[in-house]
């Protein structure tokens, strides 16, 4: 039973609570870094590493960190890991570093990471938090790669930089531009929604449950959204 529980912690991030398609978190990198599969995979793994490390550390420190300053503490920890990942990528994968640009630094404000810290790691054991981090990270990576595959194959007639010759004359270049990203994302969400019979994204659209700011957002800016959701 226990093992089963752990497994579900791991897999729920990949399917049932996929951060990109079900929870609709981390939309900025999802749209910005999915013009090609390599960039999307790099972004996904970078976020996974940060998510795993920050989840583990925050879970370890959950009894030490006082409630009043927990958000600044989480931000500091996450920003620290992001910077480390940034430096590592710049040192060992310079091409990827150039591709991701500012979005690498912006992992720090990726809602998924702060959201998981606030919602899961601060309440669960180190082991479970690690599994949650890996699951969510994998879910994020898979979703990014799926979206990048659609955009790169049809928009640039290549996959992970390898040209697909028979598509070369039928490129829909619009897909690798900014509007194409939003269109593909919208279509994929609709597809997921259709496959899950509408149990997925529609109900969870931007509720406070998915919002990393919920912790110190007492004013109820999202009140109207809650009602509508």
């Amino acid at each position, binding site marked *: 039973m226990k093992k089963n529980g752990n497994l579900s912690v791991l897999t729920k991030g990949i399917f049932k609570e996929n951060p990109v398609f079900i929870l609709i978190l981390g939309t900025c990198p999802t749209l910005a870094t999915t013009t090609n599969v390599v960039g999307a995979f790099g972004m996904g793994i970078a976020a996974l590493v940060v998510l795993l490390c920050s989840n583990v550390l925050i879970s370890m420190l959950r009894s030490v*960190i006082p409630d*009043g*300053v927990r958000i600044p503490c989480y931000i*500091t*920890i996450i920003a*620290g890991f992001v910077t480390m990942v940034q*430096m*590592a990528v*710049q040192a060992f994968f*310079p091409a990827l570093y150039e591709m991701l640009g500012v979005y690498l630094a912006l992992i720090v404000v990726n809602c998924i990471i702060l959201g998981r810290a606030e919602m899961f790691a601060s309440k669960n054991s180190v082991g479970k938090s690690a599994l949650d981090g890996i699951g969510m990270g994998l879910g994020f990576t898979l979703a990014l790669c799926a979206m990048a595959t659609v955009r790169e194959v049809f928009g640039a007639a290549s996959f992970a930089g390898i040209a697909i010759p028979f598509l070369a004359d039928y490129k829909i270049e619009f897909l690798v531009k900014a509007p194409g990203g939003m269109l593909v994302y919208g279509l994929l969400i609709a597809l997921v929604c259709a496959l899950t019979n509408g149990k997925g994204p529609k109900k969870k659209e931007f509720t406070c449950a998915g919002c990393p700011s919920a912790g110190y957002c007492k004013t109820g800016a999202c009140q109207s959204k809650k009602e509508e959701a």
Partner: protein
Amino acid sequence: MKKSFKNTFVLGCICAVVSVILAFTNALTAPIIEKNESEKANAALSEVLPSGKSFTKLDITGQKLPSTVKEAYRAENGGYVLKLSTTGYAPGMVLMCGISPDGTVAGTKLIASGETPSIGGVAAESFAEKVLGKDASGIDGVDTVGGATKTTAAYRSAVKDALNAAILLGGGDVDIRTEEEILRDNLSAALPSAGGEFEKLFITEDIAGVDDVYKAKNETGFVCVIGEQFIALDMNGEVLSDTTDEIASVARAAMQLLLSTQTTDLTLTDYVGLPTQLISAKVTATGNYIIEIKGIGYGILGGNDYHPASGEYIVIRVSMTADGRIIDCLTVSQGETNGIGSACANESFYGQFDGKTEANYGDIEAIGGATVTTNGYKQAILRAFESVKIFEKGANQ
């Protein structure tokens, strides 16, 4: 109070620990990042100088270098890589040029250009192979590529600048002045009081032996160019320079003739059959004619989406002897396409007409890419010849 102290303490601790860890990571990765970046920069430079491994950027501000040189790098083996920016068929031609330690071209690469891809772009590629292995003295011997003379000539002169820059950076000395700078320096040497400001005099008289006459803009004298010699004269035509009596008398005679010139305006309506493009005509006491005439170039005939017609004629002033030999020629104004047909305002173009007659005035080098301009100019010159013939016949004939 105790609570807020604890809050601050924990947050402070976390910040401190994170900072220490980051400093540590930075110490580990910074050298690798630096190495990556210098390798990347080196790879671009190695492309044009394969024998070089590591490069140091040189500070070239204030250095005496050709003006086209924008960046300079020295390789550890004594070679140089220069980044040059010049104007070919269009402005904005940027190329990298690698110079081997022995002072020959190791490689060139066009980084950016506004050249026509199918013509100038292709020519630049084939030209890049031609200049390989050439040194500063051999570079002028490389022929330009037909059909893209401008592009390849600019390429050649940029590569020459790179070769000269390498010599200069290596501590050598080489003359990098342009032709105009050399002329100005020679004029200033002959007549220092002019302060380096000269204008070319429009010559209306047959002054045998004298090639050109320049007048100091501050009215302190003239300089006659006689072959390789620059002879200074004062405003009254007295020779100032030290020279042989023979040359001094040639210069003096020419100046006397020029200073004493009297002209009479001709009334165009007195003559029958003059070209409508004729603006004005004068005759000198010695019987030479000074004619101003309009040429119909691209400014009138042209006009497409990229180069709209300016609506301006090319205005040409030409002086010629009564028997129809051009003494001097000058473009007064023009509205041709900037950077292409506008070259008709350059002395290198209109200077070609000096000494020409109706029989051979067509033997001039056309302006590259500006056939309409060149033909309009030639047409105007032909009409000037015709006008002189009519003036010679006399009024109302």
